[in-house]
């Protein structure tokens, strides 16, 4: 089983090719590392996979499925409906006073019962009259604008990060992005959000369902914080955590989504050797719990220690792919990257 397949990913910013023609496959429950010198395009590759950037070309599949929304009847119906709604409302909006006059004022006499049926009839007549006297153009224009807007919205939301996250892909960021004003528990709970089912009304009315769900996810988030060793600070603001612990919280937040794949962007950055050993244990435990791990890392001891396979990037191209032993033996990799690393 493959958890992730990236085929011929290319990302271009204007004239700059950040990632070119990268293809790789990650098996289920593997730990897969992406390495390469700074500026090799590793983070860009992650961003392209998680929907933050749109790849210029190429395709990413998670568990054999492309996450990208395809054009379906539902989308077509939605576009058509919004075109219709916009056509009608632009027609009404531009002639609202005349319609009001014909429908309400002409039919209503003070303190008399209102003839609803008749006025609805008048309203319809007035609308038809408007369509005949040039209003059709307004309606067409409004319809085109509304349908166009809906189509553009759909096109833009085909492949958004939230869609990919909901498909079971969670990630962390190179420059840690926690919700600093929220407590640790709340940070983790945000990660669980898309697994929750209680919606607006059950929250507003405090229905039993809301309480059940809250209890369940709260205890789960405390468990998760225990897993990464932060349970004793559960109610502190995330912004008050020291740097090394923030990465753990970010990992916990990503794990909260119960993802099939977790993408870690430089999880060991800024950690001291003993923290790195802890991190390696953590990564293995995450994998043993059934999650595929893809990581970007510069610390060779960590990469060589935990990874099942490694992808090497340089200047946006992939120069090698294989097991740690193969990479270590590959002269191109040693020259490009390992050779400059003192503790490799």
């Amino acid at each position, binding site marked *: 089983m493959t958890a992730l397949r990236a085929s011929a990913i290319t990302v271009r*910013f204007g004239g700059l090719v950040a990632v070119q023609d990268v293809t790789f496959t990650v098996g289920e429950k593997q730990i897969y590392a992406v390495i390469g010198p700074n500026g090799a395009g590793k*983070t860009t590759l992650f*961003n392209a996979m998680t929907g*933050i950037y749109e790849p210029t070309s190429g395709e990413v599949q998670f568990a054999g499925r492309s996450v990208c929304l395809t054009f379906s009847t539902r989308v077509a119906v939605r576009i058509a409906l919004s075109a219709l709604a916009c056509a009608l409302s632009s027609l009404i909006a531009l002639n609202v006073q005349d319609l009001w006059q014909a429908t309400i004022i002409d039919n209503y006499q003070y303190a008399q019962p209102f003839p609803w049926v008749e006025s609805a009839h008048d309203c319809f007549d007035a609308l038809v009259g408007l369509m005949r006297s040039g209003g059709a153009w307004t309606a067409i224009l409004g319809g085109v604008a509304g349908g166009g*807007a809906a189509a553009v919205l759909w096109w833009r939301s085909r492949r958004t990060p939230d869609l990919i996250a909901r498909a079971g892909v969670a990630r962390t960021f190179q420059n840690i992005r926690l919700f600093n004003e929220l407590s640790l528990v709340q940070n983790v709970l945000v990660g669980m959000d898309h697994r929750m089912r209680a919606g607006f009304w059950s929250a507003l009315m405090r229905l039993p369902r809301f309480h059940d769900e809250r209890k369940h996810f709260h205890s789960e988030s405390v468990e998760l914080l225990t897993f990464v060793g932060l349970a004793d600070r559960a109610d502190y603001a995330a912004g008050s955590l020291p740097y090394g612990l923030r990465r753990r919280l970010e990992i916990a937040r990503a794990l909260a989504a119960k993802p099939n794949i977790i993408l870690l962007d430089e999880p060991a950055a800024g950690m001291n050797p003993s923290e790195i050993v802890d991190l390696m244990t953590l990564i293995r435990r995450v994998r043993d719990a059934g999650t595929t791990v893809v990581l970007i890392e510069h610390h060779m001891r960590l990469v060589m220690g935990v990874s099942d396979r490694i992808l090497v990037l340089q200047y946006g191209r992939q120069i090698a792919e294989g097991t740690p032993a193969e990479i270590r033996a590959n002269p191109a990799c040693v020259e490009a990257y390992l050779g400059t690393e003192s503790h490799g």
Partner: protein
Amino acid sequence: MQDSEVFLQQLITGLSNGMIIALIALGYTMVYGIIELINFAHGDVFMLGAFLALTLLGMFGMEAWPQHWQLAGVVLMLVSCAAFCGTLNWSLDRLAYRPLRRASKLSLLVSAIGCSFICTNLGLFWGGMPMDVFAGGVAAAAPKDFPQLVPQYNLLGESAVRVVPADIAVLVVTIPLMIALVYLVKRTRLGRAMRAVAQDSTAAALMGIPVDRVIGVTFFIGGALGGFASVVYALYNNTIGFQMGYRAGMDAFTAAVLGGIGSLPGAVLGGLTIGCVRAMSDQYVETRWTNTIVFGILVLILIFRPSGLLGSTRREKV
């Protein structure tokens, strides 16, 4: 008047007003370009400039001066209003914005709204000044008449389309200012520093650019442009009031966004467009719908092309 003449007349009015809007829009766009703040108070700084112009006019009794002396009076007003508005804008930055450089964008914007209200209130007080030009200061909130210093004859002689010297005066003031501004930003050391701060203020600071001073100067220049605009506006429209800053500010901001905020030619293009749209809407739709149309345009631009006509998009760094 024939249809084409009506159209031409509205076009002239629109372009003249558009140049004034463009001058105010430049102040918005410069400040936004450098610290990404919508300087809400800019319109009110402009309004206070117009009040200063009227005060000077009353103090020296310029209305009674002979024609060519009045010209000198206008120059005096332009210079002093520019200096005043520039200083005022600079002090707003110094007092209300600079302490918030590290705070969230929301706080900065809220602070700017606060400054705008303070300036509006100062305008209201100013309107209550016991001077003849302010109608004795009895009705402080009422709009004030600004005497016509520029003669009103038609430069085209007997033609139905009127081009008055005020139209020309608008061009004579605004165009050299815009050229000077472009020169300043593109060709001088200061301009290079401004562009550097706009792109990355941290890196600029590391390279030894005095970031706060550059931002202060930007505020001063933006405010000074507003000061010039205020005199031209008062001469052209002949009425000022303490709430005109809000209206003019909205128009100018719309212009800046339309042209692409941060872009100097964009602000001018946007200003001219908004001026013409207003004039045409006054003529062909209805005056009472003009504001709705202008705001409608603003919303449409922001939705479909948030970078504006001449602006460039910026990508968030992840």
